[in-house]
C-alpha cells in the first residue's frame, strides 16, 4: 500500500502561515477594496469613522453605508443563489415594485400589518414560482425567462395601484416603517432584519445539503444529475429563494418612502445585485455561492456611492466610478488580460 504523501509545504513560522492563509483566502479582494475605500474616505474627511448616538440610535457615515446597503445586499443574496446555478434573475426590481403595490393595497384594505408582511413574501414566492417554472420546467434561458417579468412587472404594480384608485398611493404603517427606518437598542432595525434573513438563508444552504446541491448543479449539471440530484427541483428552488429575498428587500425599500411607486422603486437594483455577486467572487458561469462575500460586494458598491456623496465629489461621478471598478475587477479576473499585463510589465522592466 502506498504511503499517504505528507504535506510538501516548507515549514514556516506560525505567523507567516497564518498570513499566507489569510492572503490566499478569496475574501481578501473585496475586503481590500472596502478597506481602500474607507481609507480614502478617512483621508478626505477625518470624521468619517465618527459614530455618535442621536435620539437613541447610532449615526455616522460608516453606519450609513451599512444602512443603505441593506436592500441591495438582500437582493444580492438571492441573486448569488441563482447565479450559483448558472442562472440569473433580472426581474427582482419588478418583484419589489409588485410587492410595494400589494403592501399599499392591503394596508388600504385594512389588513393587520403583520399579515401584510406575509402578503409581501407571498408576492416574492409567486414570482419565484413563475420564474422557476420558465427556467426549470420549460428550460428557457434564464436571461430571457426573467426578462418577461422584468418588462411586465412594473405594469402589474401600476395596475394594482389603480385597483383602489390611486397613482403612487401612500400609507402609514408604524410596523413597516419601524422595520425599515426604526431602531432597536442602538442598532437600526433593518440591519437586524437583514441579519435574520442572512442567518435563515445560511441555515437553508449550509445546514441542509441544498447549498451543495445548488453548487453542484451550477458547476457541472451532468455530473450532478449522475449522482442522483434532481437538477430540475434544485434549480426551481433557487428562483423561489431569489423571489423571496427580493420581496423582503421590497418591504424595506417601500416602507422607506411609504409610497407605492412601481415605476421607479428599485430601479437598477438587479444590476447592483449582480455586480455585488461578481465582486464577491461569484462566477456568472455557476458554481460556488459565497453568501458572506456577496454582502461584502454590496458593501463595496454602497461604500463607493456614499463616499462619493460625502466627499463632495459631484454624485454624477458615481456611476462612472462604479463602472471603472467593475471593469477593473473583470479584467483582473480574466486570465488573458493578466498574462498580457504581466508580459507588458516584464518588457518594461528590461
Amino acid at each position, binding site marked *: 500500500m502506498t504511503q*499517504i504523501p505528507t504535506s510538501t509545504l516548507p515549514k514556516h513560522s506560525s505567523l507567516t502561515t497564518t498570513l499566507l492563509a489569510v492572503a490566499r483566502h478569496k475574501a481578501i479582494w473585496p475586503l481590500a477594496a472596502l478597506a481602500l475605500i474607507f481609507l480614502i474616505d478617512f483621508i478626505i474627511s477625518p470624521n468619517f469613522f465618527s459614530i455618535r448616538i442621536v435620539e437613541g440610535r447610532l449615526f455616522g457615515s460608516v453606519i450609513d453605508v451599512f444602512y443603505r446597503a441593506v436592500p441591495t445586499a438582500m437582493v444580492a443574496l438571492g441573486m448569488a443563489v441563482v447565479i450559483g446555478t448558472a442562472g440569473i434573475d433580472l426581474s427582482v426590481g419588478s418583484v419589489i415594485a409588485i410587492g410595494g403595490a400589494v403592501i399599499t393595497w392591503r394596508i388600504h384594505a385594512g389588513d393587520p400589518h403583520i399579515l401584510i408582511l406575509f402578503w409581501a413574501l407571498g408576492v416574492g414566492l409567486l414570482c419565484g414560482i413563475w420564474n422557476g417554472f420558465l427556467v426549470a420546467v420549460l428550460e428557457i434561458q434564464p436571461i430571457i425567462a426573467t426578462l418577461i417579468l422584468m418588462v411586465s412587472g412594473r405594469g402589474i404594480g401600476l395596475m394594482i395601484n389603480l385597483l383602489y384608485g390611486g397613482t403612487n398611493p401612500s400609507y402609514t404603517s408604524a410596523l413597516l416603517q419601524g422595520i425599515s427606518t426604526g431602531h432597536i437598542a442602538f442598532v437600526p432595525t433593518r440591519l437586524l432584519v437583514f441579519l435574520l434573513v442572512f442567518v435563515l438563508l445560511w441555515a437553508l444552504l449550509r445546514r441542509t*445539503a441544498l447549498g*451543495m*446541491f445548488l453548487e453542484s448543479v451550477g*458547476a*457541472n449539471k451532468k455530473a*450532478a*444529475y449522475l449522482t*442522483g*440530484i434532481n437538477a430540475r427541483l434544485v434549480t426551481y428552488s433557487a428562483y423561489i429563494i431569489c423571489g423571496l429575498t427580493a420581496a423582503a428587500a421590497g418591504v424595506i425599500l417601500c416602507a422607506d418612502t411609504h409610497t407605492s411607486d412601481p415605476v421607479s422603486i428599485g430601479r437598477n437594483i438587479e444590476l447592483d445585485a449582480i455586480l455585488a455577486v461578481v465582486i464577491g467572487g461569484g462566477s456568472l458561469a455557476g458554481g460556488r455561492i459565497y453568501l458572506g462575500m456577496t454582502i461584502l460586494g454590496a458593501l463595496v458598491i454602497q461604500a463607493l456611492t456614499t463616499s462619493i456623496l460625502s466627499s463632495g465629489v459631484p454624485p454624477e461621478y458615481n456611476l462612472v466610478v462604479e463602472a471603472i471598478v467593475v471593469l477593473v475587477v473583470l479584467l483582473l479576473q480574466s486570465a488573458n488580460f493578466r498574462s498580457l499585463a504581466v508580459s507588458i510589465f516584464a518588457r518594461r522592466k528590461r
Partner: protein
Amino acid sequence: MAEQVTARVEMLDVSKTFPGVRALDKVSLRLLGGEVHALMGENGAGKSTLIKVMTGALSGDEGEIRLDGQTVEIKTPGQARALGIGTVYQEVNLVPTMSVTKNLTLGRQPTKFGFISWRLAREVANRRLKRLNIDIDVERPLGSYSVAIQQLVAIARALEDDTRVLVLDEPTASLDAHETALLFQIVRDLKSRGIAIVFITHFIDQVYQIADRISVLRNGRLVGSAPIGEMPPLKLISLMIGRELGQTGLRLAGDAPPSDAPVMLEAEGVGKRLMMEPLDIALRRGEVVGLSGLLGSGRTETAKLIFGAVKPDAGKITIGAITGGHSPSRSIRAGVAFCPEDRKAEGVVGELSVRENIILALQSKRGWLRRLSQAEQEKLAAEMIKTLAIATPDADKPVGQLSGGNQQKVLLARSLVSGPQVLILDEPTRGIDVGAHSEIVQLIRKLAGQGLALLVASSEIDELVAVADRVAVLRDRRKVGEISGADITRDNIIHMIAGVQS
C-alpha cells in the same frame, strides 16, 4: 485494383511530442489514390494526432509530408485545404441553424459586385451535392435533416474540385445500417475518381466492408500496415491491443462463479436506437461481470443504459424487486452506484472540494434535508482517502486541482461511500499509476467477496481476465457472447471480439 506508383500523400517519419508524452514516434504512412485506407488504434494510439498533423491543425516536430511526390509544409488548416486535403470531423462541425446552402458556402460565398449572390450559391450547393448523388432542398436548415444527411453535407463541403485526400473521422458513429450503406456507396464512388480516402473507425465489421488497406497505430508507433487481404481480424486486434497470443494473464477470481447467488440487477433486451442493440445481462451478488470490447464497441453505452443515465428504448431493468423506467436518482436509491468514464464532463464537480465530491452521491441518496454533519463528512472522506491512497494534502482542496488519476479515485470513492449493492464501473483504472492499479483490482475482488455485484467495463483485457467471474464481450454495439470461469483468457476474449473460433 491498380496502385499508382506515387502515393498522393506520404507522411515520412513524423514525430510529435507533447509535454510528458510522445504522441507520434516516427510514423510513416502512404495514402494511395483510389484507395480506402483505414487507420485504427486504441485510445492514445496517436490516430487523431497524426490526422491533425496531416490537416494542419498541429505541426509535427520531425518528419516530412509529401504530396504527389513533392515535399510540402502544412502549418494551418487553410494550407491543408489549399493542398487538397479535406476533413470531415466526427462531430458534424457545421451550423445546424443555417440552411444547407449557407453551410456549404460559408466563407466562400460567390459574389456579384461585392455582395453575395444567393442564386449562384444555391447552384454551387446543388452542384456539390449532386456529385455525391444527393438531392435535397438546400434552403432548409441543416438541423432539420437526419445526422446521416448532415454528414453527407459535411463531406460535400470538404470535397473541393481538386481534393486529393478526404479524411473521414468516425463517420458512421451515429448512422444506422442503412445510412452506413449509403455512405459507403458514396465512398466507393469517390474512390473511383482517384481520391485517397482515410477512414478512421472503431467498427471492425465496417472496416472489412469498405477498406482496401489497414494501418494500425499503438502508443504512437505504426505497428502494422497491410492490404486488407493480409490482415485478418485476429491479427488486427492483436496488433491493436499489443500482446502476442498465447500468453496467459493472472487470474484472481475463482474458476467457477457462484451460480446460486441472487440476481441483484437484471437487464433484459435493453437497448437504444443508434446506441446499443438490445442485450441481456444479469449481475449476481458476489460476482464481477466484465464488459469487454474495443473502443467504440459500446461499453460505456451499455454501462449508462444499465445505470439509467440514458433511457433505453427497449427492454426492462429489474433491480432487486423494482422494475421500470430508470433515472440515476432512482437507481442510486435502489442501491446502484456508477463511476463514469469521462470524469471531467460527467464525474467530478471541479469547484467542490474532495470531501464534498466524495460524499455527494451518498448525500443525494439521503435527500437534501438529512445533511451529513461536517464530522461525518470528514470521517468518510478520510477513510476513503486512506483506503484508495488519494494524494491530496487535505480534503478541502477543490477536486479540480488534483491530478487525473486522483480524480478518478475520488469518483471511485464517491460510488463506494454511498453503500451500494450494485456497482457499475466504467474504466476504473484509467489514468491511475501502475502501483495503484493493482490495488484497485484487488479492491474490486474484495468488494465482490463482501457481497457486491459488480459490472466493470474496461478497455484493458488483462484487467478483466484478472478480476472477472464472467465477461460479456461486445463488438460494434452488440453483445456477441459471454465467457465464464476458467475459460476467461486473453486469447478467448480476443477471439470472441474478432468473431473467429478459438
